[in-house]
């Protein structure tokens, strides 16, 4: 059982552990321990929205967790959004999930995105054999500003386009649970080797030991090496705007621990900004007003 209700009946985390052993490129080469890959399930009255699909090695557990949660049951639609549609951890289990629970709607970077999940040779998607991934409606998340979940009171999930990104990436914000899903950002908290795999992966203020040095090492040795001497003025301005304007009690990344509680959120945002301020250019590469506009 790897399901943790972050907010009962509204948002669930389906976290499964993998070893941080030098063979995973989204952690620094020298990092050791265990970390979760998490897919999230938003639940509304008439619709479940799954965020990403997890790793292939976790396939059976993800399917079991979705079954246990009754995803798509009781007349609810079952939809999927992929936050980094061109990367494997967003799509590894797309086809197995779609074959198990009919998809109503798929939001991805490209209309063809659902077919990118057809990556497993043991069970190829073969229309000529009558195979089907269902008939979901498809939307381009790159041009969306929100995803509206069906219910008597529509639930709006805001789609954000983060300036802090390596490849094409979206973040999501859910006002109902005050949760920001940040995909490959805020992913630096892991646990020591030997930590139980099926535990709650939330980090509270009481147990948080993360330092600025941890965050600097993580960014520079993984997906954000390029921040060194980069123009980050609008990156910092956008982060400030997001965290000033939205009520955020929880940062929910795709991998690494979930940052739980306002105090932890504010601390990690401050530490991230400190690293960006330290690493970024001291004068803009682009006209300063362009950065201000994007903020």
């Amino acid at each position: 059982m790897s399901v943790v209700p972050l907010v009962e009946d509204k948002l669930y985390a389906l976290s499964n552990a993998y070893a941080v052993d030098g063979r995973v490129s989204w952690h620094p080469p020298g990092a050791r321990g265990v970390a979760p890959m998490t897919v999230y399930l938003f639940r509304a009255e008439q619709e479940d929205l799954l965020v990403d699909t997890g790793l292939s090695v976790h396939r059976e557990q993800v399917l079991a967790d979705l079954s246990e949660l009754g995803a798509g049951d009781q007349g609810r639609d079952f939809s999927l959004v992929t936050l980094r549609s061109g990367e494997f951890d967003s799509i590894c289990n797309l086809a197995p999930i779609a074959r198990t629970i009919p998809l109503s709607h798929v939001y991805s970077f490209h209309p063809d995105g659902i077919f990118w999940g057809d990556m497993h040779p043991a069970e190829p998607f073969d229309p000529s054999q009558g195979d089907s991934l269902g008939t979901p409606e498809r939307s381009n998340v790159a041009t969306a500003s929100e995803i509206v979940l069906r219910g008597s009171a529509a639930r709006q999930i805001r789609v954000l386009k983060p300036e802090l990104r390596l490849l094409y990436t979206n973040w999501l914000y859910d006002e109902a649970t005050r949760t920001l899903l940040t995909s490959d950002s805020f992913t630096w908290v892991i646990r020591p080797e030997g930590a139980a795999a099926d535990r709650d992966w939330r980090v509270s203020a009481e147990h948080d030991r993360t330092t600025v040095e941890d965050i600097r090492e993580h960014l520079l040795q993984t997906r954000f090496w390029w921040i060194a001497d980069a123009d980050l003025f609008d990156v910092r301005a956008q982060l400030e705007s997001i965290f000033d304007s939205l009520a955020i009690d929880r940062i929910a990344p795709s991998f690494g621990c979930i940052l739980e509680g306002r105090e932890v959120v504010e601390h990690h945002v401050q530490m991230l900004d400190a690293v960006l301020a330290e690493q970024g250019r001291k004068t803009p590469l682009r006209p300063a007003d362009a950065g201000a506009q994007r903020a």
Partner: protein
Amino acid sequence: MIERPPQFNASRLPREVAPGLFWLGECLVLPYKDLVLHSSTSVYLLKGEDAALLVDCAFPSDRPSLYAQLDSILADGPELRYLFLSHQEVPHAGAVGHLLDRYPNAIAIGDIRDYHLYFPDLAERFEQRRPGDVIDLGGTSFELVEPVVEDLLTTSWGIGTPQNALFSVDGVSFGHMHEAGHCGMTASELPELDITQMGSYVIHFALPWMGRVDTAPYVTALERLIREREIEVVLSTHGLPITDLAETMPKIYEGMRHAHEFIA
């Protein structure tokens, strides 16, 4: 049942762009503002006397046309033995599982971190290779080289010999226009294509970090690599093949120098 949109450039591909070096793949349609752009999703085949090597593995959904293209080139051998993975992104490695299944004697090579989590049943067929490693195909070789521009820290580029071909992955990429008949053409065959502008779209979609850094050192490094390795053809995943370097590369460098104007 949902259906894929039509495929686009299969009629012109595969093409032999240098002796023993073939261009395969399809186009990806990218709506951008009021334009409908095409971005190639190219893979390249190096054919030696003893073995063949595929540079990148395309989207999973491209494999019907990819299989047909491979069959037409490899009908008389040699065997496809190597699948070079430039980095862990679906347009570059998405079909690797299917290709390993179709070619049971092939192995996937490159920086193989992460793949054990994506393809656990095939993990033993991924083998680590690093820049500097050379794959001998018999009269033809493929060398992994450090990238000038990377998508991920795991990215490798490659050089094919004797063609003196640089496989630049997402670097040196640029879009093209389907309606103008650009699909499947080389850059030198399309003098009207605004390569500098079309390069900006790829930077916007695929390499936004380049818009945040001083790109002059990257231009210098690319010029040096091309000069020192006597490169004669530049083959990217998302651009059209560049066979006239003196004419086309200055446009590429110009686009790189202005990358900070492109991200939005």
